């Protein structure tokens, strides 16, 4: 499936950065820059950019094969609690799958999401990698 350049271009801010929507009504925080708070429906929202640091709360090793994932299975996908308190889902990279543990500290990195095979555009976005602590 070919990606459309305008579609990715439009959402690039949410792919290159970790923008959090903070509700001015109910106070809750939700991942991604969005016009309305999904919790209470208010459009009185503000945006905060995450530092990209967080803790891996849970993860799964994915073998489910789809068109877009063929080459890179198994993938590690995890739930990260960012230091701003909000949760985000993302791929975990830079770690051997048998070495990954819950509760490790992770940080956001820019990696390849998809490319338009074989000669197309390459799309990048946020993934997470464990932070080495000695």
């Amino acid at each position, binding site marked *: *499936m070919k990606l459309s350049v305008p*579609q990715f271009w439009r*959402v690039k801010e*949410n*792919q290159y950065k970790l923008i959090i929507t903070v509700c001015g009504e109910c106070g809750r925080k*939700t*991942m*991604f820059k969005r016009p309305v708070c*999904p*919790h209470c429906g208010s459009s009185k929202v503000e945006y905060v950019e995450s530092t990209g640091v967080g803790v891996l709360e*849970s993860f*799964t*090793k*994915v*073998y*489910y*094969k*789809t*068109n*877009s*994932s*063929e080459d890179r299975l198994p*993938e590690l*996908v995890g*739930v990260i609690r960012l230091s701003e308190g909000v*949760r*985000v*889902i*993302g*791929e975990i990279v830079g770690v051997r799958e048998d070495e990954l543990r819950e509760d490790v500290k992770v940080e956001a990195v820019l990696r390849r*999401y*998809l490319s338009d095979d074989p000669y197309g555009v390459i*799309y990048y*976005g*946020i993934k997470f990698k464990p932070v080495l602590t000695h």
Partner: protein
Amino acid sequence: MRAHIIGGSVVKVDRHFELGYRDLAYKVTKDCLECSDVDYVIVSSVLPELSAHQLDLGTHIVQWIGKKVPVARVESGESSGLAAVELAASLVASGAYKRVMVVGVEKVTEYPTYTANYFYSLTLDYEYEVLRGVSPPVYAALAMKELIKSGVRRDCFSNWAIRMHENAVSVPHAMLKFKITHESFKDAQVLSDPLTLYDSFAFGDGAAAIVVSSTPDRNGSSVEIVLSKTEVGLPAYARDNISDLTASTKLLKEVTNRFELDLRKVAVELHDSYTTYPIAILRSLGYMDDRCDLDEFEFLNTSGGLKARGHPIGATGIYQAYEVFKVLTDSLGGKRALSEYGLVHSMSGPDNLSRVLVLKR
């Protein structure tokens, strides 16, 4: 509501390589007596443009099967079928039409399984979930891990699958008509750990038709559509727990309270795309202790559910409605419910949106 299911028909969920969308729709409506005299058709289908390069499938179906009546196609992801039934009910309840045929039809075997998996993944948010490597089994796996952490045993989920396969054995139109055991899970292919292929719905082509009429059947073999209700949930990543299926739970709590229904007694078809979800729901509703015993549930997914009857995406809701209709008025797999009410539950993705249909004999 002034809307009744008076009949229908289903095709076995299977790999129907020899039948396309129009062929399946023709086959299922030809076998349905009540379908011969309808004045509107609603087609529920999710994949025609992706798997068969066809837009405006509704029009092409009515032209092909020779029903020259108004038609519209409904697509609402995995909950398409119940959306179609609700719209059909409102068409007859409004007085505008007398008999609406709802046809659910889906081809999922046109391409290799990994392509079907990709298509199915697009029910999630493409821009913020699919592009980030999230697919439906990922959420089902993460939710399963949460439940296991909170005390649910892994066996609990296997119980669901085992029961569904058991049920399906005697259902003629079910896809997977064989039993499985706890042993089966040991070597099962992992989709997204700890979730295995045995925790997942079966992918098959299918077609199901029901007729929704403004008047009940003269012979009493019809059910009334008493209520159709919908709740929108939060995207899974925005929840405190991914296993919080608040939309489904709220709906089922509401209707069981309102009509004083016990899910152990009434005919009910729950949306069990992955074993995680029905267990999460029954647990939230207070039906599950730590043993996860399903023996007490008499008419729970008599069809075998999405797990074993199969999940032809846009057709599934129509299968479910047909099945509860049969259990209430006739029998399915040799079972007939004596209860007055029946329930159908359907869910788009991991509770992104859920629907419940209440049927009454």
